[in-house]
């Protein structure tokens, strides 16, 4: 039997039965993980960012321990790699890439955008980040240094972007609505 040509649905059913029969995973655990995966989206990360912009204590927690900060927002992190959060400042702009494969903070951002896995993005992010940002129409003020974070091993990284000017007095819901997945990867910055 060639596993590549096997009917995927039949393979999944067989795999689920095997996991249950060997008492490795229960049906309830599988359902829980499926639900968590389906729920993961950039909206989760955006909620964390908006809260960090409005609550200094939460911002401190997020930068200290991203996993705990996600759990504090009821985002399931059990069994996921540790989450690290890097803050954009007036001096430093962070850009996340995985040159080896496609490591991505799926628990808080969902599935990666298509370009994240492309060879072009992965190669150029580490070699020509400024040219790459220009193609995303992202311009950084003079004097801002770029930290390209190559996510190669056991952590998953997300960016805490800078809160844009012109958002004073906004609610966390309003703030979360302007944060896009690219802002949390670092290819773009939030704007109003």
């Amino acid at each position, binding site marked *: 039997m060639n596993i590549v040509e096997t009917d995927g649905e039949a393979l999944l059913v067989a795999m689920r039965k095997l996991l249950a029969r060997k008492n490795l995973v229960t049906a309830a655990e599988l359902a829980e993980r499926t639900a968590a995966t389906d729920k993961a989206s950039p909206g989760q990360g955006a909620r964390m960012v908006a809260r960090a912009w409005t609550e200094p204590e939460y911002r401190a927690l997020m930068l200290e321990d991203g996993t705990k900060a996600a759990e504090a927002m009821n985002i399931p992190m059990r069994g996921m790699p*540790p989450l690290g959060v890097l803050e954009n400042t007036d001096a430093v702009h962070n850009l996340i890439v995985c040159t080896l494969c496609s490591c991505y903070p799926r628990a808080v951002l969902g599935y990666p955008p298509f370009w994240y896995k492309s060879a072009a993005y992965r190669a150029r992010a580490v070699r020509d980040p400024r040219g790459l940002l220009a193609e995303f129409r992202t311009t950084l003020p003079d004097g801002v240094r770029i*930290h390209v974070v190559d996510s*190669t*091993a056991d952590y998953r990284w997300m960016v805490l972007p800078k809160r844009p000017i012109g958002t004073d007095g906004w609610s966390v819901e309003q703030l979360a609505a302007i944060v896009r997945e690219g802002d949390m990867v670092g290819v773009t910055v939030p704007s109003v």
Partner: protein
Amino acid sequence: MNFSPGDRVIVKDDWPETRGPVHIRTPHYLRGHAGRVLRYLGDHPNPEDLAFARPAAQRSLYHVSFPMNELWPEGREDDEVVVEIYEHWLEQP
């Protein structure tokens, strides 16, 4: 944990992939290059063994920063690449 934040390190100029099947989390473009330890990221089972279902010892992981001009001829001195590197890939200069 053998290194501290601020330590200067060099990534081993080693190419195990030329000697047989391996799983490596150290990108090729860093090998032989000098960087600086930014932070310690905890101990984790060595993925080079995990990938082959071998017993995997706990290894210390570090965030190491490399100036762009150390890696690329056209790289800017003030931009950096920051990468997770396991201790067994790091040497003292």
